[in-house]
């Protein structure tokens, strides 16, 4: 009898220890940042910030530098900064979102991701900052806050980038060597592809292993030229169908590229960075890619390698409903504020957001050769020549929507896989149907 009693007592002790251990960690997680404000500025505040600037590129270094500077200037803030590699960032964020354990400040993509967080009640507006710094808000380019305004007069983040996803980069030397005209029309594009193929040069480098690449860099701009922007915005809202002939035609243009062997063998099994390397080594004549390629090349390629690279927009398509000379893109991601952050922690968090997204921050980011949506004078000597070329292209171009910023996550996945399917011989009609089904299912 006595033995059994000891057993029971031990069991209970063990259990309670376990429960205490689990409960304890939960408390520290939410408690630290939730402390209400009392007294002056010197109060110790605990903040966490999550971002995906984990890489070695200039932009990531610039943002990390801004965070470090904030740390130095605010000794009363105990800042826990987590740099999470880009590939896993979305997943990590949605995992903590599911448990309502958001960090105080976090980097969030414009469009569907931030919308989903807003719908789940995880965000609070950063509007107090715009009241405190009205000039700052006025300096943003038109439309910068469109994707971060979920209710009238409240903004939930300020973009620290312009994500232009579809430049046509080309190697001037190769075009001169084989006497090819830089394509401004679809017919010229097909001629260029043929000439380069005849000379055993890959026409367009593509690394589509992570399947968003072809969608984000090529399809967005290509389809816009065929369908026009209005049609796409309607289709995304469910007022037009992706099975409309006009979209099937747009996919057909992509298939035309595939059928004419515009991309190198195995484009679906190498990643974007490998494709960039392939292109910069002069093995491919063109590459259709976003502004991130500017940053990557500035960080990794030599000066001689970059010198022959020129930047333009992808060619216009004769007979399409959309214009040429446009670039798909949109306000990039920005930092957002968790709903759970209140009091002194909230003030500190807002200042942290301003330290990164404010005028000084935007300047530092621009000088890391990244596109921004903030008007300012740039010292030409502070940026790379390639970046300036791209910057000038953007100034002239109209920005058109990127597909995955408007589609639901499921529909985006569907078109991403669909483009890979077309590259493997699939039919545009089937891909269009799957996309329409996925979009209809997730917006009903």
């Amino acid at each position, binding site marked *: 009898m006595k*033995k*059994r009693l000891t*057993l029971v007592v*031990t*069991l209970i002790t*063990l*259990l309670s220890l*376990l429960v205490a251990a689990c409960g304890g960690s939960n408390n520290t997680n939410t408690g630290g940042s939730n402390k209400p404000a009392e007294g002056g500025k010197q109060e110790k505040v605990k903040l966490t910030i999550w971002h995906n600037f984990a890489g070695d590129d200039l932009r990531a270094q610039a943002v990390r530098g801004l965070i470090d500077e904030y740390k130095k200037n605010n000794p009363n803030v105990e800042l826990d900064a987590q740099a999470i590699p880009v590939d896993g960032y*979305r*997943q990590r964020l*949605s*995992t903590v*979102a*599911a448990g309502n354990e958001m960090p105080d400040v976090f980097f969030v993509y414009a469009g569907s991701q931030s919308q*989903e*967080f807003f*719908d*789940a009640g*995880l965000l609070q507006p950063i509007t107090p900052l715009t009241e405190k710094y009205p000039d700052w808000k006025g300096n943003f380019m038109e439309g910068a806050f469109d994707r971060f305004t979920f209710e009238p007069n409240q903004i939930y983040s300020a973009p620290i980038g312009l994500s232009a996803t579809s430049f046509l980069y080309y190697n001037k030397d190769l075009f001169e060597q084989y006497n090819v005209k830089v394509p401004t029309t679809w017919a010229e594009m097909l001629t260029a592809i043929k000439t380069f193929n005849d000379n055993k040069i890959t026409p367009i480098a593509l690394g*589509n*292993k*992570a*399947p968003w690449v072809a969608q984000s860099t090529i399809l967005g701009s290509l389809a816009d030229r065929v369908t026009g922007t209005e049609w796409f915005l309607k289709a995304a809202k469910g007022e037009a169908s992706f099975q409309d002939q006009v979209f099937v035609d747009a996919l057909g243009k992509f298939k035309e590229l595939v059928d004419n062997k515009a991309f*190198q*063998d*195995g*484009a*679906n*099994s*190498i990643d974007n960075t*490998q494709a960039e390397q*392939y292109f910069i080594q002069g*093995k491919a004549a063109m590459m259709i890619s976003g502004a991130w390629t500017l940053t990557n090349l500035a960080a990794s390629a030599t000066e001689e390698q970059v010198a022959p690279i020129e930047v333009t927009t992808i060619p216009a398509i004769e007979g399409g409903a959309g214009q040429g000379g446009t670039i798909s893109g949109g306000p990039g991601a920005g930092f957002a504020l968790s709903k759970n952050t209140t009091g002194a922690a909230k003030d500190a968090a807002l200042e942290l957001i301003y330290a990164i997204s404010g005028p000084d921050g935007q300047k530092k980011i621009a000088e890391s050769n990244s596109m921004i949506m903030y008007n300012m004078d740039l010292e030409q000597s502070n940026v790379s020549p390639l970046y300036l070329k791209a910057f000038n292209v953007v100034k002239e171009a109209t920005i058109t929507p990127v597909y995955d910023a408007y589609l639901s*996550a*499921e529909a985006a*996945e569907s078109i991403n*896989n*669909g483009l*890979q*399917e077309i*590259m*493997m011989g*699939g039919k545009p009609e089937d891909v269009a149907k799957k996309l329409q089904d996925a979009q209809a299912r997730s917006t009903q």
Partner: protein
Amino acid sequence: MLSSLRTRSFVALALLPAVLIFVVFAIIPIIWSMYYGFFDWKGLGAAKFIGFKNYEMMLQDPIFWRALKNNLILVVSAIVGQVPIALLLALLLLKNSFFNRIIRSAVFMPMVLSTVVVGLIWGYIYNPQIGLLNQVLETIGLESWTRAWLDDPKINMFAVSIPINWANIGPYLIIFIAALQNISSEVNDAAKIDGAVGSKKLFYVTLPMIWDMVVVAIVLCISGSLKAFDHVIVMTGGGPAQSTELLATYMYNNTFTVYRYGYGSAVSTMIILISALLIGLNYIITKRRS
């Protein structure tokens, strides 16, 4: 009586922490995941109870069946690849000589490497432009054999299964060596006196003696192949166009890329069921044989 009770309660007490940890971190999450499998839940916001709808959708999704087929390819390749090769190597490397130990470590090495490293290495080996495999084929004049190994849906599943088998032979080798060393020398001597040598000895003496271990190895192969994930996610991410999708990557992509947490939970429950089914099947088959 009293002392046996005391030993028993001591055993129970000593096991308690491990059992508790196992229950909290393995059993309860599995039950939770089964529970979520009945909901339409995006991971954010409210969950809607939909009964067996998720399972219905799963069974109607051709990608699910493709993932299952790919997993079965892995299971078969593991059973006909890993187990016999490991057994053969174990027989060859049984003696504890210096040379044998080096080979054993070499076979075991990929197991110690991070799976991400293995995936990246093989990703480069298979690279269509700069990959080792294509370059070797070109050098020996088999240019027509070169291809984009991870790209072509007809072969990429086999291309993917090779590194997975390569990386997983090590532990089976160790298991088999241990089993072979456990065969008592009397049995071997008796076999020798009775004239059992070579393949006769292998099939009538050695294999029956270690049959239990072979069964264990096959069970490990099945469960390991059904939850295979890391090599594939690094090499292909389940692509292109979901042609190398496995049950685990299918679950992962649905849960974390498309945010269908409820559906993903249903898929993971299905993985458990399929795994249990196959292991049960294996149990029945091997039982009958012995």
